[in-house]
Structures are given as C-alpha cells and as structure tokens.
C-alpha cells in the first residue's frame, strides 16, 4: 500500500514537472506488454511483430519517402474536407438556429441525412464520381458537416436572448448582433462540433482510403495487407492514434477550453 502510494505521488510529481510525460507514461505498460508477448513468441512474428519491427518499418518507409507522402495526402484531405465542412456547416447552423422557418424546413432533412452514414454513400458516390478525390472529399465533408451544424444550432439557441435584445436596444444592426453576440456566444459549441466532426472525419477518411484511395495512410494499411506486412498495418494504426491525439489534445481541446473559458462556460 505504502509503495503504491509512493509510486503514485512520484508519478504526480513527475507529470507536474513535465506535463508532456502524462501523455506518454500510460503507454509504457502497453508497449511493455506488447514487447513481452512478442518476445515470448506467443504468436509468430509475421502475425504480431514487435515494437522494434514496427519502428524499423517506420524508419524504412520514411527513408523511402512513402510514409511522409501518404501522411501528407491524408492530412490535406482531412483538413480541406474539414474546412469545406465548416464553411458550409457554420452558416447553415446559424441560419437554422436564428430562423424559425429555416429550422422547420431544414431540421427534418438534417435528421434524415444524419441517419445515412458516410460509408452508406460510397456505392453511389463511386458511380457518380469514380475512385477519386471527389468521392473522398464528399465523404469527409458529409461526415464533418452534421456535428458542426447540430452543435452550431445548439450554440446559437443557447445564447441568452436578452443579450441580443440588449444589443438591439443599444442600436446594433441585426448583422452586428449576429457578428458580435450570436457567433461569439455559439463559438464554444461550434468548436465542440468541429472537434467531434474532425474525429468522425478522420475515421471516415481511413475507411474511404481503404476502399477508394490510391494513397494515404488507409491505403498504405490496406496495401500492406496484400503483401502480408503486419508491420506496416500496425504502423498505420499507431500513426492514426498518435496523430489524432496530437490534433485533438494539443490543438482542438485547448481551443475548446479557451472559447469555453472566454464565455464563462468553463473556469480554469
């Protein structure tokens, strides 16, 4: 008991001093267990390679330029799809949130299409656009769009009406109320929607790259299956997890916290 308490306090002191370690330490037992299982020869190496084999694969694929190129393709697809999804989703969400008529017309349509998953679109998208970038972009935009729209509507509707009334009584035009009251008030929800949308979009992108792609991390993993290279499949999985951790915990979460704190939804 005493030893475990000492370990815990040591862990807390360590992570207090170097906060970045808090993200790495939980993975140490996972990697240790993985190493132990592979070293014990429980499974053949071709079936479950060890961490060092995967690290070697990482070095080789980077040296040959394959990994950076595929990673770049995946990230460009994700961020361009997310940007387009936001450009469509935020105005649509604001419109639905501020106009009762728009809400009546768009809400049932939104809910209808929300139920049709992104991958369910693939068969018809392949007929319409073929195996190409358009199909991939469509799926990502579609995936990002719904969380952004729904959260934007929620954000717009949760801005206290009194704030808008107060601004109007001080002479603000509707456009100024929208820009200076409604949008800033809805921003924490918009960021939450973006965070969810990007997460779903990232997963959808990998699925689409597996089915449609000729490049990208998803394609690399699926192509490695052809050659029976489990190293590359595991490497792809690790990269997916790491990248999403960095994008979510290092970029989106601080942004979400900052907007939440700014508007008093969260206190530090």
């Amino acid at each position, binding site marked *: 008991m005493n030893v475990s308490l000492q370990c815990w306090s040591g862990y807390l002191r360590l992570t207090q001093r170097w906060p*970045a370690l808090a993200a790495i330490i939980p993975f140490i037992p996972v990697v240790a267990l993985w190493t132990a299982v592979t070293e014990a020869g429980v499974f053949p190496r071709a079936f479950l390679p060890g961490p060092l084999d995967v690290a070697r694969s990482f070095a080789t694929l980077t*040296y*040959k*330029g394959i990994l950076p190129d595929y990673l770049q393709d995946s990230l460009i697809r994700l961020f361009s799809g997310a940007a387009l999804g936001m450009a469509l989703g935020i105005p649509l969400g604001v419109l639905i949130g501020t106009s009762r008529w728009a809400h009546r017309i768009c809400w049932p349509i939104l809910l209808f299409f929300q139920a049709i998953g992104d991958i369910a679109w693939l068969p018809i998208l392949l007929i319409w656009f073929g195996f190409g970038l358009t199909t991939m972009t469509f799926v990502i935009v579609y995936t990002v769009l719904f969380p952004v729209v729904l959260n934007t509507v929620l954000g717009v509707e949760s801005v206290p009406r009194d704030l808008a009334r107060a601004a109007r009584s001080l002479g603000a035009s509707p456009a100024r109320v929208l820009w200076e009251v409604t949008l800033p008030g809805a921003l924490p929800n918009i960021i939450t929607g973006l965070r969810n949308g990007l997460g779903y979009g990232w997963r959808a992108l990998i699925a689409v790259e597996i089915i449609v792609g000729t490049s990208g991390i998803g394609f690399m993993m699926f192509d490695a299956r052809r050659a029976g290279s489990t190293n590359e499949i595991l490497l792809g999985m690790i990269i997916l997890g790491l990248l999403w951790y*960095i994008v979510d915990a*290092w*970029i989106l979460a601080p942004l979400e916290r*900052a907007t939440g704190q*700014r508007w008093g939804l969260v206190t530090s």
Partner: protein
Amino acid sequence: MSLVSEAVGSGKFRIVVGVIAAWAGFQLWLTLAAPGKISPELGGSSEKVNVQIELPFTPERFHVLAFQPYGRVTGTDDHSIELRGVKRTDLNAVARPYWVTAVGPIKQGG
C-alpha cells in the same frame, strides 16, 4: 487576453506550430535544392528530355507511380528509374523529392 493568444499560449500548441514551420522550411529547402540535383548534361533546347532518376534504394511501385504524371516510365534499375518524354519545365518537380539523389541523362545500355 484575446482568444487567439489564449489558444496559442499552450506549449503543446506551440510545438505543433513549430513542427508545421519546420515542415514548411523543409519543403522550401527541397524546392531550392532541386535544381542542384539536375545534371548539366541535360542542357539543350529540346522541349522534352529522357532522364534517369537516381535513388538511394531499389525503387518500388510508389516511386514509379510518383513519376508517371511527368512522363513514361520505361524501366527501373537497382537504384534508378528511367523516365522518358519529361518536359524541361517539369525537371525541378522530378528532382524535388528528398529521396531523389540525382537526375541525369539515360546511361548507355539503359
């Protein structure tokens, strides 16, 4: 404190920005270094040239596919790829990847 400065105040965010800046710098360096990889023997006035692209490893399908938009891949060697009908204006793009060590004329017997 403004929203942007609050968001970028995080150390992790700055690391990400640093990595992106390093990547952008690397891309700039690749662009600047590309002309230096092209052999002077490729000089001339013809619109298109046939080139041999040297790599430090045996080319794979990925590398062959990467050059297909620039010309016809007519063969691969232990450490090189033959590419025919490359426009002179595309030579820098062919030489740009960091895994290309040199771009020269096709060697005899190639």
